């Protein structure tokens, strides 16, 4: 895992350096490499596919414009996510109520089965594969709806940790906050999300 991360960083360093010298192929490779992860993160924070696509484009446009200013003090990966998250936060400020309808829609009768299923999974110590549960479309919508009920800072920290899989120091770099703040914010965000889910589950 550590070796893979190191190779990723080395690969990124080479591609970034080439991009800084105007190599459009290298820049294209960087975009292709990170487009899904950036899009997925933005989508989970903003909750709207079209807006997520727009914000992803904007993120990479900014990346191209700013690539020469990247000094390598942090990992390219966290630097890129910082751009993405900041753009998404700005978007969230403009549309404060984004995602509210998702959870309300997920509380309808057609979601009853999914909610029961989800409640049992969370309380059960059984060995049900979480990936199988999460592949359930309705459960996925309930989870995303619950995420959208968090404020954007809590949402971002949960998305970066539990979905994107970033380490605490990487989250601290991407969100430009202290490591201690990452811990406390993540703890509170998880507790809030749990409370939100408990209100939805049957």
């Amino acid at each position, binding site marked *: 895992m550590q070796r893979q991360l190191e190779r990723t960083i080395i690969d990124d360093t080479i591609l970034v350096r080439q991009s800084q010298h105007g190599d459009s192929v290298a820049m*294209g490779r960087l*975009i*292709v490499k990170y*487009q*899904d*992860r*950036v*899009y*997925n993160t933005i*989508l*989970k924070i903003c909750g709207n*596919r079209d807006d*997520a*696509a727009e914000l*992803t*484009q904007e993120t*990479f*446009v900014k990346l*191209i*414009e700013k690539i*020469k*200013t990247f000094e390598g003090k942090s990992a390219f990966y966290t630097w890129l996510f910082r751009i993405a998250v900041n753009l998404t936060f700005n978007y969230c400020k403009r549309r404060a109520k984004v995602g509210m309808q998702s959870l309300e829609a997920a509380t309808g009768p057609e979601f009853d089965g999914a909610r029961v299923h*989800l409640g049992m*999974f*969370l*309380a059960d*110590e059984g060995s049900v594969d*979480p*990936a199988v*549960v*999460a*592949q359930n479309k309705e*459960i*996925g919508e309930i*989870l*995303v709806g619950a*995420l959208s009920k968090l404020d954007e800072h809590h949402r971002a920290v*949960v998305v970066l*940790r*539990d*979905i994107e*899989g970033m380490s*605490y120091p990487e989250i601290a770099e991407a969100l430009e906050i202290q490591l201690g703040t990452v*811990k*406390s914010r*993540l*703890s*509170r965000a*998880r*507790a809030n*999300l*749990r409370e939100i*889910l408990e209100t939805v589950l049957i």
Partner: protein
Amino acid sequence: MNEGHITDIEELLSCYIDGELSERGRTEVKRLIQHDESVAGKLLKMKKQKQLLNSLPIASAPEGLVEDIKGRLAKRPISERFGLDADESAGARHLLYRRVLTAAAMFVLVGVLAVVVFSVIMPGSALRKDVAIEGGGPSEVVTGSKEALVDSGRGVEAVDSYPFKAALELATYESIAINGFIAKAIYSNDLVDNTIPKRHPTRSDYHVTCTTEQIVGLLDDLEAVWVRCERVSLTVYGETVASDIVIGSVTSAQAIAVLAQEKPDERVELAKNFADFNALIQSRGDEGILASGASGGEKEFVPSVPVKPELTRPEQPQARRDQPETGGNVNLIITVTGL
């Protein structure tokens, strides 16, 4: 268990499921969940919640994202698209160079304009002129500022920008009486507001600025002064300092005739004639011509048709001041010098 403690447990469990605790922290959490079922339940829910979120399907970016980004970049202005490159390009330097040049040219233009405007509107600009100095004859010409000549106490402060200027000098042994007479004449001709009197140790100046008609009226009243003066001369300032005309032993009729002329050319022509004529009289002796004039019942001789005078000094081509085409206002300096 207080609220702060719960928060600490939440954070502890959160770090525990993320593998971010030290060995000691992990041991503590294990001890906690062994002795407290609620903590164990909470930890289970947290783990499950994390697993679920981690297992959510990863949404793929829309197809053609790279093309969309290229299209988006193409829509942006070149300067915005290439950011730092544009600053470093030769085109940008050239543009900057042109802007600097344009700004410099504008500054120079504004500076020249300011100098021109300043020279036009500045009151002091009219002071630096050539001034004719009385006392040394028409050939004595000094160039300097008006103030400097006034301070010297010997100059005729004749020159400012007023049209048609002349100086009448009266040299007399009865300066007190003559000054009184002049003051009375100025008063009776209602020229008090038009006159600036100046007293000097040996002379008195009256700067009179008025219309031609008023100056003629004043000189009419001053006719009686002539007989009480030893010398009377009239200086008519011409286009240039060198073209100033001094009429020696000028009579009151001659002075009136010159000052009454409306056109500058005629005024100058007549002044020259009188100057030559009076000089001729002086050279032949007063008895000759003046006696012949007196025998005809005339007090003085005024030629009706001026003869072409000979130039007493070379013409100077350069103009000293603007002269109006027609007469009008006159600036006459009457100087009474005590003998």
